[in-house]
């Protein structure tokens, strides 16, 4: 079984400060990992994904995430937060060795990011 935990319901950060949104995962084998962002009344927008290789993945809008196999984590980061980054962020995982085919993602419960002036 595959699962994701986002331990923080909300993260508050001042504009211009670095931000981190935490994600830990559990899979039977090796993971594929994703971050999505959701703005109010809109669908999920893809930010970045980890497939293999370099543990630091760079994505859209200046976001990046670091894959840490020993800690089973995939935290989302940005060096300097903007007010417009305020949104709901979802981490998702897919086990590399999925039975029955398919491309099933398991999402976390989401972390609300609030960036204030």
């Amino acid at each position, binding site marked *: 079984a595959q699962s*994701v935990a986002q331990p923080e319901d909300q993260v508050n950060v001042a504009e211009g400060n670095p931000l981190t949104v935490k994600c830990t995962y559990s899979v039977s084998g090796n993971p*594929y990992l*994703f971050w*999505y962002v959701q703005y109010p*009344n*809109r*669908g*999920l*927008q*893809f930010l970045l*994904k980890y*497939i*293999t290789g370099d543990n630091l993945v760079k994505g859209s809008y200046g976001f990046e995430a670091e894959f840490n196999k020993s800690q089973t984590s995939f935290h989302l980061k940005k060096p300097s937060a903007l007010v417009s980054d305020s949104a709901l962020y*979802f981490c*998702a995982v*897919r086990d*590399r060795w999925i039975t*029955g*085919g*398919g*491309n*099933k*993602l*398991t*999402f*976390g*419960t*989401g972390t609300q990011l609030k960036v204030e002036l």
Partner: protein
Amino acid sequence: EAGVAQSPRYKIIEKRQSVAFWCNPISGHATLYWYQQILGQGPKLLIQFQNNGVVDDSQLPKDRFSAERLKGVDSTLKIQPAKLEDSAVYLCASSFGLTGGGTGPETQYFGPGTRLLVL
């Protein structure tokens, strides 16, 4: 490039009524997904299609939910009869395929969703 289209955007129905949602994926995308997102939770996969065939419907409540993608493009998700606990946002997503060869799974792109309220 046009994104995933969904309609309607909002729907309010009484319990035991029927409702249907429509999705048009990104042009050329063979794989289509329906997710249910209950307030305060992450999206949960209900069903995924590869062209017009079902790949995974293990989490679809088949006693009341059905979905089809007859011509391998548009898809319809139906609930009949609806229950109060079906109140949620129903998200449609699409991807070019299931896997990207050696580059892992294809990225899924989401539509704006249909917000359903069952009274």
